[in-house]
Structure formats: C-alpha cells, structure tokens
C-alpha cells in the first residue's frame, strides 16, 4: 500500500514538471501500442459474428451486416463443446480445491512447526517449482497407465494434487501473521486444525484467492497434459477440443473457429476482469509464469 501511495506522489510530481507536448507523445505511443495489442481481439470478435461470405470478402468488411449470434450456437454444436466445458470445469475446479487444501496444510507445517528435516524438505519443495514438467512426462504417463487411469478424470487431476508454488506462496503469507496470535489461541485451548481454520485461513484469504485464481488459469488453459493422457473425444478439455476443432474440417470455417476460440478463452478472461488486482499482484509478487 505504502508503495502505491509513494508512486502516486511520484506521479503527481512527474506531471507537475512534465511539459504538455511530452504528455501528448506518451499518450500517442501508449495508445498506438494498446491499439495494436487490442486489434486482434477486435478482429476475432467481429469475425465471430460474420457470415462465411463476409469473412471471404476483400477488402475486409469490418462490421458484420447482421450480428449472427447463431455462429456461437453452431460452433458449440460442431464438436461436443458442452462435454468439453463440463470436463474443463470439473478438472480445473478439482485441481484448485485440492491444491489449495494440500498447499495450505504444508504451508502451516513450514511456517509454524519445528521438526527434523524441515529445511531440507522446504528446499525440496522450492526446487520442485523449477523442474520442467517435460521431464516428468513419460514416467507420469507410465504411472497412470499402470494404474489404469489413462483417459479418465484421474489422469487429468491426480498428477496435480500438490503444488510447490502454492505451498511457498501461502507459507510466505503465514509468516506475516504474528506468532503471538497463534500462541494466544493455543493457550485458549484451540487445537491445531482449529487454529488453522479460525485464525490463519481468515487472515490469508487474499493470498488463497490469488493462488486459486492462478491455478485455475493454468489448469483451464493447459493443453499439453490433456493431449497426452486422453484418447477419446468425450474426455477432452476445452483447449484440446479447440485444437482438434482447428485442425478438423472446421479449420477453414473461420467464423466458427473464432466463436469457439472466444468461448474457450472467455471464462478465464472474465475471471481476470473481475479479479484483476489479485491476478496482477499474484503474478507480480511471485514472478511466475504458467
């Protein structure tokens, strides 16, 4: 917070000493950059509402003559997107819930308990964040095959039961909570689970929410893992369904492909627009990419 106040003060100073010409230039450059970044989205949205004839017109007609909402219905029906959507919701929601629970428990141990091997275990959890997922690819595929889990929800969820990143993020938050508070609760006779649930979790809601959002985004958007462990159409998730749709006959039906791209990406984009601050702070603080 103090950072923000400071930067606001900085900005006020900046503006008072800035000549107008410079401000105009800054606006012009940023405006042009934002236009370039946003243009593909405009193109995608407008195309999703066009007829095929309008798509194939040159020079392009920017606005559709009629906004065809039925494109979305048609695209949704071209592949079993209803099923993919349910799969994606189920898989990412399960992973988020399980990861928040396992990471919170582990973070509790690392933040407030003394036990042999604590440092080594913590370093292990940290270094796990650095392991490229590709190294684990073949063994995990084999493990799931041996467990007879390939092409099931188990294969999509089980490898992601724990998160080194989540453990680290939540531990950092727990460490900001004064130990006096925990000791007081303990003296009052609160049990270990009770302290976690009634003291730590309520004080850490923003961090838990940030981690849940990032985890939801990574697992909703994940393409690589579902590609490897699913083989039947009914087990596909949204990104995988969209990728297959892209390569199928629909590949040249750009208006339908754009509509499908929109409804694949929309849930996370909406989540981002609603909880922008959590997303941005979570990524800025952790510095972690998907």
């Amino acid at each position: 917070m103090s950072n923000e106040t400071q930067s606001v003060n900085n900005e006020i100073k900046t503006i008072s000493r800035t000549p107008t010409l410079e401000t105009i230039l800054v606006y012009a450059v940023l405006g042009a950059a934002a236009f370039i970044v946003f243009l593909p989205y405009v193109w995608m949205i407008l195309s999703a509402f066009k007829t095929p004839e309008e798509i194939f017109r040159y020079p392009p007609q920017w606005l559709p003559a009629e906004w065809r909402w039925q494109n979305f219905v048609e695209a949704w029906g071209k592949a079993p997107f209803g099923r993919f959507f349910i799969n994606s919701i189920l898989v990412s929601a399960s992973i988020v819930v399980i990861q928040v629970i396992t990471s919170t428990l582990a973070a509790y141990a690392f933040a407030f308990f003394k036990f042999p091997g604590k440092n080594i275990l913590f370093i292990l959890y940290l270094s796990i964040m650095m392991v490229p997922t590709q190294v684990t690819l073949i063994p995990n595929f084999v493990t799931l095959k041996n467990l007879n889990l390939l092409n099931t929800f188990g294969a999509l969820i089980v490898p992601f039961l724990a998160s080194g990143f989540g453990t680290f993020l939540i531990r950092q938050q727990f460490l900001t909570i004064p130990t006096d508070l925990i000791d007081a609760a303990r003296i009052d006779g609160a049990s270990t689970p009770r302290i976690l649930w009634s003291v730590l979790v309520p004080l850490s809601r923003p961090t838990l929410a940030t981690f849940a959002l990032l985890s939801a985004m990574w697992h909703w958007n994940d393409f690589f893992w579902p590609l490897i462990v699913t083989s039947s159409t009914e087990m596909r998730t949204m990104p995988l369904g969209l990728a297959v749709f892209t390569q199928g006959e629909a590949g040249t039906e750009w208006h339908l492909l754009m509509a499908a791209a929109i409804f694949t990406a929309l849930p996370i984009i909406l989540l981002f627009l609603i909880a922008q601050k959590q997303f941005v702070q979570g990524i800025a603080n952790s510095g972690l990419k998907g």
Partner: protein
Amino acid sequence: MSVRVRHLKEWFTAYALLAPSFIGLATFIIWPMIYSGYLSFMKWDFLDEPRFAGLRNYEKLFNDDVLHLVLRNTAVYSVAVVFITLILALGLAVLINRDLKFRAALRAIFFLPVVTTLVAVSGLWLFIYSPDFGLMSYILRLFGSPGQAWLNQPNAALWAIIIMMIWQGLGYDMIILLSGLQNIREDLYEAAMIDGAGHWALFWNITLPLLSPTLVFLLIVSIIQAFRVFDPVYVMSGGTGGPANSTATLVFYLYKQAFTNQDAGYASAIAYLIVGIAVILTAIQLTLSKRWVTYQ
C-alpha cells in the same frame, strides 16, 4: 506432558500436515525425475521390457541432425521472443509508470493476451496469418506488399510464431517491470535532476541500473519458459512441427519421439538435455545477478 512427548507430538503433527502434498510431489515429480534418468539409458517402446542401451541415447543427441535443427529453432525462438518482448515491455512500462488517465484500462489491455488460453490465441493468429483473408495480409497489402502463406514457408513460419508470442507475453513482462519501477526511490531522481540530469541520463543512470535485478530475473525466467514452448507450435503447424521441421522445438520433438516414434529412451535423454539447459541458465542467472546487478 514431558518436553520430549510434546516434541514428538509436534513432529508428528507437522509430518501429517505435509503428508498429502509430499505424497503428490514424490509420486509425480521426484520419482519421475529419477525414473526419467533411468529410462534415458534404456531402449523402450512402452510395451516390452526396457533393455539397457548404455550411452546410445546420449550419443544420438550428438548425431541426430533433426535434433540440431530443433535446437537451433528453439534457440532462435527463445532469444528473439525474450529479448524483443523485454525491450518493448521496458519502453511501455517506463511510459505507463506515471499519472495517466486510462492507466488501468491500458494495463488491462496489455495484460489480456497473458490470460487468454494459448490454444485460442494460436487459433486466432492462424486466421490472422491466413494468406487471403487474414488481418496480416490485409494490413501488408495496404502498404503494397502481397499477403503470403507465412505458416507454409520454412523460413517464415517460426517468425510468424515468434511475432505472435511477443504480442502474447508483452503484458507479463510489463507488469513485472512496473512493480520493479515502483520500487525505485523517487528522491534518487530528484537528486539527479537538481544536478541537471536530463530524461535519458535519468533512464541510463538510475532507472536501468536499479531495474537490473528485475531485468535479469525476467530474462532467465522467460528464457527457461520459452525453451518449453509447445502449444503454439502444435496448433500453428497442425501438429507437424513443419513445414520441414522449421517450427519444431525441443519439447515438441520430445513429444514426437515419445508418442509418435514410441522411443521412450531417446525422449528421456532429450528431457535431460532440457534439464541441463535449465540448470546452466539458472547458474548464469546467479552469476549475472552477482556481477551486473545494482541494488539501491
């Protein structure tokens, strides 16, 4: 309760709290790391018993011409995406780090591609790059240059993906750089301005040196990330890595070796090559951050 019993109780509780995540990490990250190492010395098609292959898989790393092309593609892709994105993002972050109207909206727009499903982004750009009806050929034709099937040309396809991924990653770098910029103390600028320093002098002598920890961090995280690129290659090349392997990257090649050629041993050796590269890059980061980085 004796002190000893209390200790034991605390230990037991801690291990119980760690158990769920530890079992998950041990089964799906730690054990696979070890098992991958074992497999890299084996010949295995996922079906029969693995047979010992000695160093053959690692020898193949040196003799496989396609792998060398793939390494080159990956290096070109990573260096281009990482450096161009970083430079553009630095410019944007410096510009946006002031009291602007629409600042929040601008930041949201730049960040939007970061949260957009990469497969959807790839689908969108597939259309943008469409030679006859795509946005890119339309814009280029306005400047008198004809549209082309970039994704079908071995010397253009990788760059088409690079441009898309710069667009995609810009907002991420910008957000991290912005938080770095906001940690630079304003009195440093004020002192320098009293000494008569201009805008460029401020940027070169204060902003850039004090931003160096953030820049080095971003550089390494982004390169490690870029080395793992897969989704856009898969979607934009129609699952082929083509034309003529010109867009195949390391992870894509690993995937092909494992699941198309059923060569689990060689794929595991490639996986260890990726680990090796990641370790070297991290070591470089540690050295660089000691030597180059200026702290306030």
